[in-house]
């Protein structure tokens, strides 16, 4: 018997209790049972259009999509029975008939959901001998590549991402039947500050990363965990490198911070590391001209200069300004170095002029709660923030919470649209901001 308010479902012979409204897919996942799928994504609405997750359900005359079938009490599901496998194999065959066999030159190769599942559910040879569909490529901007839209399997994850997460529908589906295709609005590009996530979401090689295109195979790359320096959120990253060169940056899932998303700034700014005009060697200014030197010479010169100042004026005459985008660890080392030199003059607030409130601050200023707890607030007042550009993923938290009833209010100096449903918005001149708050 089920616990009151819970439903018991049996998946592949194993029982699990789930709350009302749980879909078969989630129930199976709780048991660690994988149901093949393409269109389903736990952060997006249910579309049930790929049909890959068809499973056998007791008393149901037809196979049902696990992603869209709500659990009922006592339901029995088989995800890998003959009937289920037959349905899944059938869908896989349909997905492959018009999919180009260009895996060897596809950027998604090696991390492609279709490729992976075709191993389990596809046939080695196709029964389809008719002409294949061709879909024209699209130019939707410098970041997201839609160069091979023939690969698209119309799962609509990218469309739903735009509508539901990015807050603006920039991709849509035109045409019907076999002629259905994903396009941006006529003549427009995808401009969302979260657009790169569509690359991650795309289960095939239709939407790929333009900067990364044709530069490496995923299995050639090493993975390093990192934290984004680009905003106050600290999104978790995976930096992928080949040798000492950063090839691309991906999201590292952290439900407490960035969930499974990444802002475009975090994802694509690695290109700056490899930019030709980047300073790659230390330089010393001698007689007004900069001269490239090796690290040993540069460090020796630095020590000489510090020592000269310290001997003449004392350590306190030295001040250290650190970049605010540095990590806590880096900042810790900077202050340790400064104190070693005999100086307490360390700061990272490079753009702040007025420090008169310092005396009133106790401890480090911070949000006062976890990032993930923001969504549980009833009411929020956002003051003077270009939220979408300043903290793209925080904006998404508010967007989701507002949809669930959180009242988001904005007091701002410009008509910037945060793409969040606002309860109230006030626009005032910058000089009137304090007055309006009072």
């Amino acid at each position, binding site marked *: 018997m089920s616990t009151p308010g819970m439903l018991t479902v049996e998946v592949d012979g194993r029982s699990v209790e789930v709350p009302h409204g749980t879909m078969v897919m989630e129930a199976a996942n709780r048991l660690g049972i994988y149901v093949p799928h393409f269109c389903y994504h736990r952060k997006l609405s*249910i579309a*049930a*259009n*790929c*049909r*890959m997750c*068809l499973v056998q359900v007791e008393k149901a*005359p*037809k*196979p049902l*999509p696990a992603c*869209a079938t*709500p659990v009922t009490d006592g339901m029995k599901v088989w995800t890998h029975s003959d009937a289920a496998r037959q*349905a899944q194999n*059938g*869908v896989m*065959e*349909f*997905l492959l*008939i*018009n999919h180009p066999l260009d895996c060897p030159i596809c950027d998604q190769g090696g991390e492609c959901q279709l490729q992976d599942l075709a191993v389990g559910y596809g046939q080695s040879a196709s*029964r*389809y001998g*008719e*002409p294949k*569909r061709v879909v024209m490529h699209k130019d939707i901007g410098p970041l997201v590549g839609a160069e091979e839209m023939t690969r698209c*399997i*119309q799962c609509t994850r990218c469309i739903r991402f735009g509508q539901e997460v990015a807050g603006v529908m920039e991709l849509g*589906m035109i*045409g*019907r*039947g*076999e*002629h*259905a295709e994903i396009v941006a609005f006529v003549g427009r590009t995808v401009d969302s500050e979260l657009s790169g996530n569509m690359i991650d979401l795309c289960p095939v090689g239709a939407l790929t990363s333009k900067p990364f295109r044709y530069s490496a195979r995923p299995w050639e790359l090493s993975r390093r965990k990192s934290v984004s320096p680009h905003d106050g959120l600290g999104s978790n990253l995976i930096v992928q490198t080949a040798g000492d060169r950063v090839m691309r940056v991906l999201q590292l899932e952290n439900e407490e911070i960035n969930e499974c998303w990444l802002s475009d700034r975090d994802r694509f700014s690695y290109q700056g590391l490899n930019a030709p005009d980047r300073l790659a060697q230390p330089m010393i200014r001698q007689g007004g001209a900069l001269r490239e030197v090796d690290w040993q010479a540069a460090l020796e010169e630095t020590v000489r200069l510090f020592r000269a100042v310290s001997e003449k004026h004392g350590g306190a005459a030295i001040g250290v300004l650190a970049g605010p985008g540095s990590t806590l660890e880096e900042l810790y080392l900077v202050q340790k170095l400064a104190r070693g030199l005999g100086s307490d003059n360390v700061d990272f607030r490079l753009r702040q002029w007025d420090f008169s409130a310092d005396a009133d601050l106790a401890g480090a200023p911070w949000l006062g709660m976890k990032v993930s707890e923001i969504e549980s607030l009833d009411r929020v007042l956002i003051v003077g923030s270009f939220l979408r550009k300043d903290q793209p993923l925080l904006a998404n938290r508010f967007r989701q919470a507002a949809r669930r009833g959180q009242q988001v209010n904005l007091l701002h100096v410009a008509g910037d649209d945060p793409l969040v449903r606002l309860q109230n918005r006030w626009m005032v001149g910058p000089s009137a901001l304090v007055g309006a708050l009072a």
Partner: protein
Amino acid sequence: MNTAHPPFDPLVFGPDAQIMKGVDGLNWRLADYEARGGYRALKKIFAEKIAPDALIAEVKKSALRGRGGAGFPTGLKWSFMPRQFPGQKYVVCNSDEGEPGTFKDRDILRYNPHVVIEGMVIGAYAMGATVGYNYIHGEIWDVYERFEEALAEARAAGYLGDRILGGDFSFQLHAHHGYGAYICGEETALLESIEGKKGQPRFKPPFPASFGLYGKPTTVNNTETFAAVPWIVLNGGAAYLDLGRPNNGGTKIFSMSGDVARPGNYEVRLGTPFAALLEMAGGMRGGRRIKAVIPGGSSMPVLPGEVMMKTDMDYDSIAKAGSMLGSGAVIVMDETRCMVRCLERLSYFYFEESCGQCTPCREGTGWLYRMVHRIETGRGRTEDLDTLVSVSDNIAGRTICALGDAAAIPVKSFIQHFREEFAHHIEHKRCMVGERGAARDKAAA
């Protein structure tokens, strides 16, 4: 619309016609409808203060089944609408008649629009809905315009709008002109289309009765279903049931097309033998032999002519014979028809009309069409027939809506009943039958 033509014989739809009784092609206006006894059912409901529940019970008793294709009991469908729902409820009329072979709703709306309006007002009253829409097929603009005129007449006469007939019940009915997509005849795609979205079916559950138009409880019925309601209210459910057969109440309009002498709409009692219906349509054109019949619209299984000649036209009899009554579109094919060519045409339709939302239908309908097209054009392969059946099986029952099944059923039934014709086509690269095959034989000789 051109109304210059002379009136036609009111008996053209058959002697037992109820919906089309007394209709002569010109007498569609409100005054004509009232002269035929129109809106008496509505007046009776308000005069006798018939409760909504009693109306639903009467419709249940009549055994009226949905005339759009699925044949779902109408009274039962009406009873699914939540009675005490605090918000807006809707009734929607599905006049998006797109099934090849079906042209009955067009004639009802063209020649007798007020019977649909009256049926919808009664339905809305029975289900407690205050707003309704009639979604009219994209290709019949003249019919849409006429329906708008009829709505204006009904509003002016107090049969529609605020405080109908001076009572407490108000109902706002709007006509909505579609853009000609077959898929919008699927009820949830139709609702999406009314909402201004792309006409693509929703997955179910939830069904429209709990989550319909704009997310509110909604009942969608076919035009002919609503048109049958006033008669039931006036004469009683039992009398309606008596017109037909048990579980198959009333009369039904059959759209007779294909190789018959007088194609057109014929309204007959359910249970009428197919042979009698064929006789009404003037029999086979040119006196040729009947070969095959699709009894319920192109998405229903085809049956050999000799089977149909022994079958009666009602839901249960046709189901027993191995097909479905569907929307009542009877497509008759004579001995000169090439079954491969017929199937090619049907498969092209479903390929063209697939909405592209879900995989099996989007990919499979094109595959089916291309294979049949190859066979028809003399490039068939022996394994094609088994592949056709297997691909059909992989589409049917695996899709969001019934279009997948609709595309698969003709393929399977044509091959089931006429396999030798397909095999002949593949082997000899030409028709086994038909004028073109004969002509080619002659040329070869």
